[in-house]
């Protein structure tokens, strides 16, 4: 693996500085944002790198669990922030966290236990990056699917109530919306799988190759990751969409849009 020196990084940062200078020259007023973002990403990644290094050395399962929890909560918050209409109370956060848990924790757990088979199975060097990748990649689909089901139910409330009025169960009345929401949630991962490797190499595979790994070995890892992400996204989306559509109705099968609150802009 070719080690990067501080000088190499400085050279790369010159690109961002050049872009900022161009922005200033063209009066795009992006330079401030650009520099702040650049500094942020550098500091954040450097800190994460340092922290990860310590965690890999410590090998303490409790610290690992705590990190997993923090990652889950941040991901759930991100899913929540992308909802036009959210459920009131703990439901909004709960549905996001529950789906992210299913999509990422359970799948990462299975992969660590049965695919990688390290001793101990939670070996931080594998579990932390895997979990992070799962959370980051399944979040998108879950946020999309969840947003779709609540937004559609809101817009098509008359249609849903019209179907209920004909004696349909709440499940029947919302079935088309549910189906569409699952499709929307799965679209990103489906297209990712379809074009994998043809348009661009996935990030993990690129990283492994740059770090000197064998491209064919790297591709095997990448396939495993893609399948995990697909499975995680699929089950996570299903969980979020079904839970949300369940919560949209009360025990008497009435559509309860009053349980949603619109996002304040």
């Amino acid at each position: 693996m070719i080690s990067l020196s501080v000088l190499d990084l400085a050279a790369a940062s010159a690109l961002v500085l050049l872009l900022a200078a161009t922005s200033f020259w063209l009066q795009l007023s992006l330079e401030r944002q650009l520099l702040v973002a650049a500094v942020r990403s550098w500091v954040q990644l450097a800190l994460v790198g340092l922290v990860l290094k310590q965690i890999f050395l410590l090998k303490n399962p409790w610290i690992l669990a705590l990190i997993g929890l923090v990652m889950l909560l941040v991901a759930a918050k991100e899913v929540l922030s992308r909802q036009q209409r959210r459920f009131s109370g703990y439901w909004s956060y709960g549905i996001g966290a529950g789906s992210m848990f299913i999509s990422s924790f359970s799948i990462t757990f299975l992969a660590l236990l049965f695919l990688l088979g390290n001793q101990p199975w939670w070996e931080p060097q594998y579990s932390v990056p895997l979990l992070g990748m799962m959370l980051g990649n399944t979040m998108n689909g879950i946020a999309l699917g969840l947003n779709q089901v609540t937004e559609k139910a809101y817009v098509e409330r008359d249609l849903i109530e019209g179907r209920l009025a004909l004696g349909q169960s709440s499940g029947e009345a919302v079935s088309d919306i549910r189906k569409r929401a699952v499709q929307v949630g799965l679209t990103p991962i489906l297209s990712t799988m379809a074009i994998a490797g043809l348009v661009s190499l996935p990030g993990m595979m690129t990283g492994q190759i740059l770090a000197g790994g064998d491209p064919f070995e790297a591709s095997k890892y990448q396939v495993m990751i893609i399948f995990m992400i697909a499975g995680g996204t699929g089950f996570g989306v299903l969980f979020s969409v079904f839970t949300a559509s369940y919560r949209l109705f009360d025990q008497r099968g009435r559509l309860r849009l009053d349980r949603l609150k619109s996002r304040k802009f």
Partner: protein
Amino acid sequence: MIRPKLPLLELRDFQFFDFVPCSLELKEGEVLGIQGASGSGKSLLLKAIADLVPNQGMAFYKGQAAEAFGSADWRKKIGYLPAVSAWWFDDVASHCSEWDTKGLEALGLDLDVLNWPVSRLSTGERQRLALVRLLSHSPSVLLLDEPTASLDTANRKLFEDLLERWLSVEQRAAIVVSHDPAQLERLATQQSVLKEKMLVSI
């Protein structure tokens, strides 16, 4: 001893949102006409009776409380026809397993409309088709929300005739919300007005 007939639909201290609790009885063959300004909550009242919005108090069908029915069963007995009908498939025919062809003819609809895409239907056609679709579920009480709002005089007459024929069969009654006092005069056996969140008989 002759047992007095139980009303088909009875509401006792029935309440929804911030409306004043109301009570009413609807016996076999009766039609309650409801008037009221736009936005006075007439549609909401019908929806509440169909148990589509949260409500308190008691609603009975033939003496049996609404809670004793599953919500879907209650809505099959108490058939609510919204002012704007719901269509979720692309074609008309799929919306009902057994279209009543006689009902379609009685409302002046050509049987060919069943093969049409929903997008081709006019508002009036939708309204009439929605009624035929609702009747095919054989409800016992109809809750009709402005059922003839998009119909011309001739079609309005066909609708009223069909409703009267439907009511002539045993165990049937209806509540009709309308902005047309003359129509309520023709159809209703009793009338109420919804005003200031209160249902008052007139």
